[in-house]
């Protein structure tokens, strides 16, 4: 590509991405623009309903990141609403402290919500989905019980008045616009997070957490940040809710309300901002329109959830996603452009080898690796072959840090690589692909590839929230780099397609593009040719050779003998966890024991 067209391509691309983001913001802006006019066309009652919807959305916008993006099913989140409502009300009423100004009360509620949100969320780091869901239910019950019991502060069953907003926000209209502005702000900041590396990291953790770890994404760190953020938003919503209700009692915070929030996110669809926004509006309005069915409203919510889960798991967002229904070109060929690898891999510094020495690892009494030594040198392609169960993938997993060997050492440039912390490998310049492609099906191809570059971003969560300059710049660079990686592996033009629409072979190349994003010094490939057609295997081989030529050390675990013998500089044969033979492909090819072990007999 000539320099001129590269620049032009870049500008067109920037316009393309800008228009993509704008396109997604427009429906959101339209909703809020329409909402501005509600008071002019209706009465006070509907203004109150609209205020309620706005307040719910303040909570749900954060909960959306937790449930829809991070996949943590917090079904008892009304606990945070309760906490925020009581914190703000108690402070404003002056039961315990001198009366606090309502704005300050909201800020204090936010802080309390942040802390409590982290506490409620922490079990998610250790518990399975169902267990975590139940634990959030328990929290909801406890908070309500405390509100009932702590009479001196909360007024017990009698309750207490909510904070009164200062003028001009103490009228229906005034309060409505206050809440609407806050809701719009929450929409904007959660949208920013969704379209940042944090949002992508969240869905990676949700759908492919092993891959997320290998890409350097720390799940505890990320989730903790989200829990704090969600808790703060929910508590602020609680404070506003208390003002709306004018008087709060523990039974205003029912499990039904939790269900409403939770279902709004899921009906809206995971990974979307617009969907849950529409979901929240629909669910808030539903009891108003289905007045005779008011008693059945939670039943209807639940039935709606069941229908969505069974018939349209993607929710409203999936139904509105016309982009992803556009037909794809059939007969797509994967044609790598290795010249582009220069940008991605850059100049490799002189680095040592990855060396496994006499490693032993057992699973439940069976020795998966029985004293094996393997070296991966920069710029060299090292093939690892052997029958099923010989330990090939296990060795790869040991290098990746998932398993701790019982004996032997794993070093990089003679310094030990710590076991049990796969998330640190990305920093060491080690990237990998997986035996079965670990792809986020609901995200676009480009987003999937960008996940590989997460560790290259340094803008903080706050900078991403507010779209500060460093975040914008980094995001742009990451996107450009991902587009280049896609071109390099031969998947040009498929960036905006939903990943689950692609063929298996394309998914394998996406994994390679993703691995290239961090400019790795070592690339570990786990059966990348499985399921590829013969011509694709040839192109894969060429691509791997070009990657190695630029200094990256490649460890290639494979079954396809032709690929191994074609491109490898060095081949190690494993059998029953031990090295059977190690040498050049030519030496291995005629090694008697190898032939028989490989063919059996």
């Amino acid at each position, binding site marked *: 590509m000539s320099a001129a067209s590269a620049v032009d391509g870049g500008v067109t691309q920037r316009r393309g991405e800008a228009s993509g983001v704008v396109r997604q913001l427009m429906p959101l802006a339209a909703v809020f623009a329409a909402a501005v006019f509600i008071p002019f066309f209706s009465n006070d009652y509907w203004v109150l309903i609209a205020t309620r919807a706005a307040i719910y959305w303040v909570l749900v916008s954060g909960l959306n990141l937790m449930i829809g993006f991070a996949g943590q099913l917090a079904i008892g989140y009304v606990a945070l609403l309760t906490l925020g409502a009581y914190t703000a009300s108690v402070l404003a009423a002056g039961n315990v402290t001198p009366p606090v100004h309502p704005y300050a009360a909201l800020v204090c509620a936010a802080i309390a919500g942040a802390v409590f949100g982290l506490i409620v969320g922490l079990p998610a780091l250790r518990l399975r989905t169902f267990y975590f869901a139940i634990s959030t239910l328990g929290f909801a019950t406890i908070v309500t019980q405390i509100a009932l019991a702590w009479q001196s502060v909360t007024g017990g069953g009698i309750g207490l008045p909510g904070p009164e907003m200062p003028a001009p926000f103490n009228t229906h209209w005034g309060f409505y616009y206050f809440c609407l502005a806050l809701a719009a702000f929450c929409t904007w900041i959660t949208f920013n997070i969704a379209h940042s590396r944090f949002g992508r990291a969240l869905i990676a953790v949700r759908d492919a957490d092993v891959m997320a770890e290998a890409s350097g994404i720390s799940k505890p760190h990320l989730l903790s940040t989200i829990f704090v953020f969600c808790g703060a938003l929910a508590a602020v919503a609680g404070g506003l809710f208390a003002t709306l209700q004018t008087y709060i009692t523990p039974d205003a915070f029912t499990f039904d309300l939790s269900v409403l929030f939770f279902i709004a996110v899921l009906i809206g669809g995971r990974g979307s901002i617009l969907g849950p926004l529409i979901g929240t509006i629909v669910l808030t309005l539903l009891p108003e329109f289905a007045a005779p069915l008011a008693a059945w409203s939670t039943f209807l919510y639940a039935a709606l959830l069941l229908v969505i889960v069974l018939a349209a798991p993607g929710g409203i967002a999936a139904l509105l996603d016309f982009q992803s229904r556009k037909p794809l070109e059939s007969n797509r060929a994967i044609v790598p452009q290795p010249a582009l690898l220069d940008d991605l891999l850059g100049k490799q510094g002189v680095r040592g080898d990855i060396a496994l020495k006499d490693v032993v690892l057992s699973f439940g009494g069976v020795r998966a690796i029985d004293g094996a030594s393997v070296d991966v040198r920069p710029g060299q392609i090292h093939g690892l072959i052997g029958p099923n*169960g010989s330990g090939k993938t296990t060795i790869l997993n040991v290098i990746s840090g998932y398993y701790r060997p019982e004996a032997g050492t794993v070093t990089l440039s003679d310094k030990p690589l710590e076991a049990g912390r796969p998330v640190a490998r990305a920093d060491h310049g080690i990237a990998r692909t997986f035996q079965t492609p670990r792809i986020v099906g609901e995200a676009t191809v480009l987003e999937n590839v960008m996940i590989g570059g997460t560790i290259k971003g340094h803008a903080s969560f706050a900078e991403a929230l507010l779209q500060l300059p460093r975040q914008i710049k980094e995001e742009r660079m990451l996107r450009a780099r991902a587009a280049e990686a896609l071109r390099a592996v031969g998947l040009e033009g498929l960036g905006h397609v939903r990943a689950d629409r692609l063929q298996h072979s394309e*998914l394998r190349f996406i994994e390679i593009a993703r691995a290239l994003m961090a400019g790795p010094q070592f690339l570990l490939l786990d059966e990348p040719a499985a*399921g590829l057609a013969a011509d694709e295997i040839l192109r894969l081989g060429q691509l791997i050779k070009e990657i190695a030529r630029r200094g990256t050390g490649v460890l290639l675990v494979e079954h396809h*003998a*032709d690929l191994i013998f074609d491109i490898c500089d060095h081949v190690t044969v494993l059998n029953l966890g031990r090295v059977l033979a190690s040498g050049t492909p030519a030496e291995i*090819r005629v090694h008697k024991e190898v032939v028989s072990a490989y063919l*059996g*007999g």
Partner: protein
Amino acid sequence: MPTSAAESLLDVKGLNAGYGKIVVLHGVDLTVRAGEVVTLLGPNGAGKTTLLRAISGLLPWNAGSVAFGGRDLSGVSPRETARAGLAHVIEGHRVFTQQSVIDNLLLAAYDLPRGERNARIEEALSYFPEIAAKRNDLGSQLSGGQQQMLAVAQGLVRRPRMLLLDEPSAGLSPVLVDRVLTVVSTLRKAGTAVLLVEQLIEKALAAADRVYALAQGKIVLEAATTESNLPQRLEQAYFGGHAHQHAI
């Protein structure tokens, strides 16, 4: 060597199968006649286990046909294929470790009329006196080899017309492998057809009448085991274009 369709017990034509998006079998043709032992060889990842699973109904397939005893097996569940006389002994000697040997065999006899169960179980155990002696031991108390024998015995409880055996030698000592393959010979004499997937080429060829080789989802060789030069022809079939380097 042409196999007339009228004689073949199992008839697989143009079978395509895979897992999700990954297509593993690309149009496989294979036949097994009543009473013959056919062995299926091939490197790892070739699709041998996938083929057996597709035949017995454990894995859905989307193109081609599978006929057993003249009956079309498309969309048929493993339970139905077992009832039709096709028993599948899966790889990995997966017996129920928390239940006794007798209970494992009783489970294999689930669909048999109550009165026949004990007789058939004894019949199956008669092939493997070693585990008959351990009939009340739990599956977890058996060695790997004994578990494999139990798994094969499970397959025999219903006196199948054809047995699919997936890598019975995996993880077994040579003595036990011979033991299992002796049973295959006995079955052959009794008129039970066997489709044997194996890694141990020489032993498999010795036990079988015909051989198929599967590589990268396609049949690359079909021959009688009496033909000469089979090991070399197999190597050639597996390594494709690289085989000629060896000759040089």
